[in-house]
């Protein structure tokens, strides 16, 4: 089981999707590819949890606990999303789409997975950048599967804004490289290697590194949906088909955060504490603050979730910025929790869209009465994302906030807590409109095993992780925290 498998499997699945002649075969390839990938990823991640970092491809690929957390995430949510899509888009319902588009969907889906894996696994900063740009390009098509006006608009904005953002990031990377080369290290490929740079952090010029971090923060921050770079996010996430939204919101954003984390580690090593931490906290809190009014007053439930992603990315960034064990641990756990919860929510949004034919909050009433199962999942999901126990997000939020206090960022932490209350209010407000109340539509008879199964699993995940974090996963997180905090790695 090598890392190569991770990269080859989606490639092959994509290829097979191109070649597949019929819908059933395509569906089979689509799902089994994701399943195989997930299997490989889990095996790899938990087998290497205890061991040190593994380099491959001439040091271009690095699997350390930090990367492993993200690999785990991509593979798991990828699988869920694939299974869900198998019911959602490939099913017999009227949401299903023609074969050509399905094919395109399957291809780009797997390419998307590939590029995301590459983002988190690459040790080479340049390759990481390429992969991130790759995710944009691959997912732009996924956002616009149905060629509706609004989808095109969303995809276009997504494309343009992320490309500009990513250009800024490249600017930063060049500066890093420049700092490395001018720091007396000569030239060479390995000067773009994160691990190498980290070991020579002392020779990097602090001023240039600061400048570089600023650009990278702006660039990857755009991808990660940190305010005020987030403007594309609600559009893209609300227009994409639900399984894609789940991937975009749950995983893609986190991948960009992983990029930011890597640079943050580097910058901190070169510049010392206080700079990148401060920026991360600032933008983290700002993201939460910016998301807040949009969650309080919102007419579209998918956009509601999208803004909540902005909020949660902000929280994650703040957690990383807070530092200390609890901050970082919380942030990493939060990434995982948010991914599971948010994808569950987007999946259930797919269901809701199916039932109610509208994305408007006003159009959805009495969900619990209309469909008790779906209503319960949605109810639980919204409460979970709003940070209520016994769901997992609460644990990570609490950890992040503890980190804030532990690192004595009282103002920022208090602000976050206040904003979280408002956001909670917003969510409960919308929830009590959507989920509660008298039934307005006939109960929907058609049940899809694939889709319901995914919802069950998602529900199980967010509840069980909220109550108990299994040992191996705990070890993985601790390892990742050590990487970020710089104690071994």
């Amino acid at each position, binding site marked *: 089981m090598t890392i190569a498998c991770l990269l080859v499997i989606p490639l092959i699945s994509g290829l097979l999707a191109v070649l597949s002649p019929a819908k059933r075969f395509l569906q089979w390839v689509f799902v089994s590819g994701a399943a195989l990938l997930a299997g490989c990823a889990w095996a790899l991640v938990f087998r290497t949890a205890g061991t040190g970092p593994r380099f491959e491809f001439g040091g271009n690929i690095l699997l350390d606990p930090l990367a492993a957390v993200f690999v785990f995430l991509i593979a798991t949510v990828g699988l869920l999303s694939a299974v869900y899509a198998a019911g959602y888009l490939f099913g017999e319902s009227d949401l299903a789409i023609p074969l050509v588009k399905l094919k395109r969907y399957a291809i780009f889906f797997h390419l998307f997975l590939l590029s995301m894996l590459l983002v988190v696994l690459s040790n080479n900063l340049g390759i990481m950048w390429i992969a991130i*740009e790759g995710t944009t*390009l691959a997912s732009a098509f996924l956002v616009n599967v149905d060629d509706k006006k609004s989808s095109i608009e969303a995809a276009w904005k997504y494309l343009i804004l992320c490309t500009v953002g990513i*250009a800024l990031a490249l600017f930063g990377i060049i500066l890093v490289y420049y700092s490395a080369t*001018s720091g007396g290290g000569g030239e060479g490929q390995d000067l773009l290697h994160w691990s190498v740079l980290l070991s020579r952090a002392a020779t990097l010029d602090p001023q240039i590194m600061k400048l570089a971090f600023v650009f990278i923060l702006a660039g990857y921050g755009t991808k990660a949906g940190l305010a005020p770079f987030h403007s594309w996010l609600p559009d893209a996430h609300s227009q994409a088909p639900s399984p894609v939204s789940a991937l975009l919101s749950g995983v893609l954003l986190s991948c960009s955060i992983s990029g930011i984390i890597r640079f943050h580690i580097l910058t901190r090593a070169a510049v010392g504490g206080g700079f990148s931490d401060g920026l991360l906290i600032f933008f983290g809190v700002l993201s939460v603050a910016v998301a807040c009014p949009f969650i309080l007053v919102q007419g*579209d439930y998918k956009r509601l979730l999208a803004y909540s992603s902005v909020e949660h990315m902000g929280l994650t960034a703040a957690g990383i910025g807070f530092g200390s064990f609890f901050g970082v641990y919380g942030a990493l756990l939060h990434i995982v929790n948010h991914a599971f919860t948010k994808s569950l929510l987007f999946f259930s949004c797919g269901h809701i869209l199916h039932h109610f034919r509208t994305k408007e909050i006003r159009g959805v009433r009495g969900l619990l009465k209309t469909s008790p199962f779906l209503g319960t999942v949605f109810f639980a999901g919204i409460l979970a994302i709003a940070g209520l126990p016994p769901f997992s997000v609460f644990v990570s939020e609490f950890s992040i906030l503890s980190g804030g206090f532990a690192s004595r960022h009282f103002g920022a932490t208090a602000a976050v807590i206040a904003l979280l209350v408002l956001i909670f209010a917003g969510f409960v407000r919308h929830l009590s409109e959507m989920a509660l109340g008298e039934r307005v539509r006939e109960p929907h008879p058609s049940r899809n095993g694939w889709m319901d199964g995914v919802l069950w699993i998602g529900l199980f995940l967010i509840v069980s992780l909220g109550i108990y974090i299994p040992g191996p996963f705990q070890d993985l997180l601790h390892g990742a925290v050590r990487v970020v905090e710089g104690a071994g790695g």
Partner: protein
Amino acid sequence: MTGAAWMLPALHFVAMLLLVTSLALIVSPQLFACIRFYALHSFLLALITTGTALYHRVPHVLIAAVLTLVLKTIVIPQIFYRMIRRLGIRRDVETYLNIPLSLIFSTLLVFISFYGVGNLRAIKPPLSQEFVSIAVATLFLGMFMMTTRKKALTQVLGLLLIENGLFLLGVTTTFGMPLLVEIGIFFDVLVGAIIMGVFVFKIRGAFEGLDMDQLTMLKG
């Protein structure tokens, strides 16, 4: 290690020209003029690349110079011309700001980039000092251009300007990234351009025009 003494002032001069071209690109009211200025900009970039290659004696940078010359001064402008003809786009550039205001903001941006990046101490090749600033300026100007233009196509042009800025920075400070990365970036940019092209056509199909004001259904 370094080249002839005359090259330095010459490079300074070309750098200044590059800036002026960027400004011209931003204020020019005509689409074709824009493209021409872009071609000029790319040409000057190629010149600087060549100059850097010669001055610092790094021959592999010459390849980049040649590529720039071919791709950016010839191929991309040609593609643009064709697209404009095929899509039947109106040739004047619609902006949110008038020319004097644009100029004022642009020069302000240039100043900010010189001021903001001017104090980097550890810059090794002395030439790079100003090129970092100019690259940042180009980056900002490109983004500024994107923010003030109404049409999709001119926005893409702004993106290309940003890309030029990146290229400038990469070439003049680090003499290019490692090959693998360079190829990857190149490939990405290419695919990106193609995908954007596809979307330009889709937008045209769906919205009957490329005016970005129409693409404001999603808000709030």
